[in-house]
């Protein structure tokens, strides 16, 4: 459905997209994950033919995407990162305005607007202007304006930034519902939990490059970490730490100033039991202990050497 090949975009000396490749299939919820400034929004703007780029090719629905590709644009819905609605118009008028840019038929549009209002749960706010809406409701309006015309492809650029948890969950559920209704979704975010929760495939971006791609499981299998064991409230000596590092399957053990021991293990059985046995042997006191499978942050950390949240 979307094919981006060898895309290069430079702002003077800064390379925002560095030979970026992307392939998105119909029916996916595709996640673009990366820290702020990694090139996610630039990639989206190039895809939408808003930005000039230095090199590369972009096709959408098998056709080259250009500013005058009106037939392609008709099938795309965009939910921008910054809320983009008219302050002087009510919720209903805003959705009707943007839907009308795609759907000229008044009767059909009326149905679509009502459907979008129900979908985002703004039934009680139809006549309110955006100024009177809370941050979460405003985000929902932003989404409704982008999806009311029932696009085949929906591009959502960080739609949950500065949104309360309740609205965030509702938005994420809505995206899954849209996808079940037949829409392909491109979802950019720097919140790995969200991407992990809803995306069927993910590209991790950094410095304008796609550094890894695949399903969540595929991405996690790319790295050494198979399990992270965390022990809280522990005071271990450097010698004891070294001993933990030498346990089977352990490749990293760090003790923070807050007395939290983090042990990363490669795939193997009984990692947690082995570590606990050692702590018992050494008669080390500790608090809470838990083991967790790797996260996308671990993937990012291992590939780039820095935290995704940086």
């Amino acid at each position, binding site marked *: 459905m979307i094919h981006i090949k060898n895309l290069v975009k430079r702002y003077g000396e800064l390379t925002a997209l560095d030979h970026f490749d992307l392939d998105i299939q119909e029916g996916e919820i595709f996640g673009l994950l990366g820290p702020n400034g990694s090139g996610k929004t630039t990639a989206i703007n190039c895809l939408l033919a*808003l*930005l*000039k780029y230095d090199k590369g090719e972009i096709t959408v629905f098998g056709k080259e995407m250009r*500013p005058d590709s*009106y037939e392609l644009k008709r099938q795309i819905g965009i939910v921008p990162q910054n809320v983009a609605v*008219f302050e002087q*118009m009510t919720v209903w008028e805003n959705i009707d305005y943007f839907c009308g840019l795609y759907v000229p038929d008044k009767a059909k549009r009326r149905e679509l607007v009502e459907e979008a209002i129900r979908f985002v749960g703004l039934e009680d706010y139809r006549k309110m202007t955006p100024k009177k809406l809370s941050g979460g409701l405003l985000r929902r309006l932003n989404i409704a304006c982008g999806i009311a015309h029932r696009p085949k492809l929906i591009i959502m650029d960080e739609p949950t930034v500065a949104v309360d948890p309740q609205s965030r969950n509702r938005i994420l559920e809505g995206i899954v519902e849209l996808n079940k209704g037949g829409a392909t979704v491109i979802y950019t975010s720097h919140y790995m939990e969200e991407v992990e929760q809803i995306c069927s495939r993910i590209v991790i971006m950094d410095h304008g490059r796609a550094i890894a791609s695949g399903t969540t499981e595929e991405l996690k299998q790319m790295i050494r970490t198979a399990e992270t064991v965390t022990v809280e409230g522990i005071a271990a000596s450097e010698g004891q730490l070294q001993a933990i590092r030498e346990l089977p399957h352990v490749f990293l053990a760090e003790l923070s100033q807050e007395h939290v021991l983090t042990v990363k293990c490669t795939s193997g059985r009984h990692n947690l039991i082995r570590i606990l046995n050692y702590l018992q042997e050494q008669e080390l006191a500790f608090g809470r202990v838990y083991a967790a499978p790797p996260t996308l942050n671990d993937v990012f950390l291992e590939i780039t050497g820095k935290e995704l949240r940086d």
Partner: protein
Amino acid sequence: MGRLYRYNVLRILRNRADMFWTLLFPLIMATLFYVTFGSSQMENMKPILVAVVEGGNGIFETFLDALDGETLRLQKMGAQEAQEALTSGAVTGIFYSEKEPSLMVAGTQIQESILEMLLNGYRQNQSLAETIGEKHPLGVLGAAKAMSEQTDFVEEVSAGGSTQDSSLDSFFSLIAMTCLFGALMGVESAMRLRADQSALAARRSVTPTRRMGLIVSEMAAVFTMQFAYICILLLYLHFGLGIGMGRRWPLLLPVCALGTLCGVAAGMFLGGTRLKEGIKIGVVIAGTLFLCFLSGMMYSGMKAEVERFAPIVNRLSPAALISDAFYSVAVYENSCRYARSLILLAVITILLTAAAYLRMRRERYDSI
């Protein structure tokens, strides 16, 4: 397209900030001008006490003598004495009858403005008076009387059926200001059209609605509303404040229409630049007020001064052209001058509209 236009009009109607600057502010200014000028006009004018310091310009002195009586009360004095009389308030101004006659006043009230108008009237006819003085010395008095009568004629009852006074400069410049304040809405429109200026513009740019449709619906809505606001101002000036618009008032409508379009186009052109929004708004307000100042909004003799020292400014400034076109219709009934102002305004408007369109038509940007 009609739907977009209707929504744009609705949005502008609900924008209180725009409505203040483009409708309420001019109405308030008009009322203030009326309070300032209107009340003093209604007083019975007594002759103005003026000191004359003789400096050898016989023609100018003859001109002043012709006005002595009803309009002026002249007192010939030495320079020092005249200064003291002006300082003490015994006289309103001092005419220096030198080769280049000059005026010194101590205030900016209506009487000082009248003196200034008289001097300007003389200057405009100076070469004619000097020629008569050289070739027909006996005709100087008659010429001076004729010039003073012309001044009286222009001051009191114009060919357009209106009373001309210095306040008309202010009112006509105020109308020009309102037209040019269309640039405020133009700036906002541009920012809603160029994807590199706002998220809203980017969102609209990725829809299948053709760019031309978006631009035209924006411009048409802004033009309609701004023109409507100007019509409200004209109605208020005429019926509310009694400012005469002349017998041929329908000719004022194309002036307002072109002036509005000129303002909107200038605003859209400026709005398409990468300056910050606050700076753009500041440039529009400061630029408009400056042009209106030059066309006489704050100081009635300004336009004449500009005409004297830099006439090109009066030919190129939309504010001066609008004000001049109003004078031509409402006061002078001078079709040639009206046509000249209208044509120049049309040329400037066409150029600005073309420039604005070139800025707006862009669809792909270097950075967003």
